[in-house]
């Protein structure tokens, strides 16, 4: 994979992912509202939210949280760039974790007890999903013989045929990665939870707008990872990937609306057990084959 290609992918991702992610976030809120018997906000509501946040007064407790969030955004863009230009999957996974770490540091920098609890829980979430992400990348390698995402186009069948168990494990941690209920421990979209905003407690205005945009980009990237399992042969099969990614996205909204938040112990244990069983068994089988 050439450097130019990756850079081009990064720029394209940085431009397109916020647009797609914003529409997905808007649709998410409408679908959620319909599930609750409400009409819901307009499709472009997340865009209005971010525009409003950009117009708010600039107040920052530490003065550096905005900078940390900018770093998080840049790492997210590079992660998406690596993935969507067909580059290294492991690199993409590590870069998005770097973005999550900057997000956590931004929360810690405010020294607020609420933000610190949120940041602590966000770190726990990273600990919970990271093993499965690595195992997913290993399963991808064993199925395709390369870490390059573009490798799926040379296959005769989608990798989900041999890695379906790992895919189920990945779906499980997708809920944590998208910060959906029951794993929305670090921060919730809804008030009246035991810890309402957690990580973003002390963030406001521009910094919070950056958090929103980062979430949009993350959603696009993670749905891209989901779609990757269903692509084979040539670029024409990308449409199959998109369909399955959207199905997974709908499933996440359904889960989000039907479960209450769990304790962090339950999250960590279940995520690791799933990683061990789904990821571990799948990899063991692939190695024996």
């Amino acid at each position, binding site marked *: 994979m050439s450097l130019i290609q990756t850079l081009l992918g990064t720029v394209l991702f940085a431009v397109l992912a916020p647009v797609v992610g914003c529409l997905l976030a808007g649709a998410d*809120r409408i679908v959620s*509202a319909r599930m*609750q*018997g*409400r*009409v*819901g*906000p*307009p499709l472009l*509501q997340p865009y*209005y*939210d971010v*525009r*409003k946040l*950009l*117009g*708010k*007064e600039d*107040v920052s407790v530490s003065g550096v949280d905005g900078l940390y969030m900018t770093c998080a955004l840049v790492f997210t863009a590079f992660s998406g760039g690596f993935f969507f230009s067909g580059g290294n999957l492991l690199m993409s996974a590590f870069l998005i974790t770097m973005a999550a770490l900057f997000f956590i540091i931004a929360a810690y920098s405010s020294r607020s007890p609420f933000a610190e609890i949120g940041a602590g829980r966000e770190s726990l979430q990273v600990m919970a999903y990271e093993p499965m992400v690595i195992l997913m990348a290993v399963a991808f390698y064993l199925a395709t013989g390369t870490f390059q995402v573009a490798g799926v186009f040379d296959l005769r069948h989608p990798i989900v045929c041999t890695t379906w168990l790992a895919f189920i494990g990945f779906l499980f941690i997708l809920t944590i990665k998208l910060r959906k209920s029951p794993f929305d421990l670090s921060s919730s979209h*809804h*008030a*009246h*939870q035991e810890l*309402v*905003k957690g990580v*973003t*407690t*002390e*963030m*406001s*205005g521009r910094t*919070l707008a950056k958090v929103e945009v980062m979430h949009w980009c993350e959603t696009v990237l993670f749905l891209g990872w989901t779609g990757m399992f269903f692509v084979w042969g040539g670029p024409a099969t990308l449409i199959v990937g998109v369909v399955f990614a959207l199905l997974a996205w709908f499933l996440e909204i359904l889960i989000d609306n039907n479960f209450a938040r769990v304790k962090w112990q339950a999250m960590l244990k279940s995520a690791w057990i799933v990683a061990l069983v789904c990821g571990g068994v799948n990899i063991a089988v692939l190695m024996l084959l």
Partner: protein
Amino acid sequence: MSFATKSPWVIHYDASSCNGCDIEVLAALCPGFDLERFGIVNTGNPKHADIFLVTGSVNERNQHVVKQIYDQMVEPKVVVACGICACSGGIFHDCYNILGGVDKVIPVDVYVPGCAVRPEALIDGVVQALDILDQRAKALEAKRKGA
């Protein structure tokens, strides 16, 4: 219309309400009225909120809390007093510990009467508050451009 009016996030604080008004405030966010149609979200975090909904009158103990929440909110912001207690002290006005309406502690922009405040009245009040929010957002924008 500025973007401030398209996504007003609210924070709700119960000063010394009898809970009648609180229930109505939350009812306005329920499916029957569905305030999220207008982008209104109950944030529960002063730093994210644009509209401060206070129910009940202010007393000696919680006047600092009300002030604290108001101070933590980021400009542009507006305050809506929900229910007659929040407007003037209501039936609690001559209790030994009651200071009176919310305007004894922080500047109030919109007074919504009623005991308990009806969700319809509350929605009207919030819509009026949006106009004020719009003016403030524009003023802030002008100040930023001038600076």
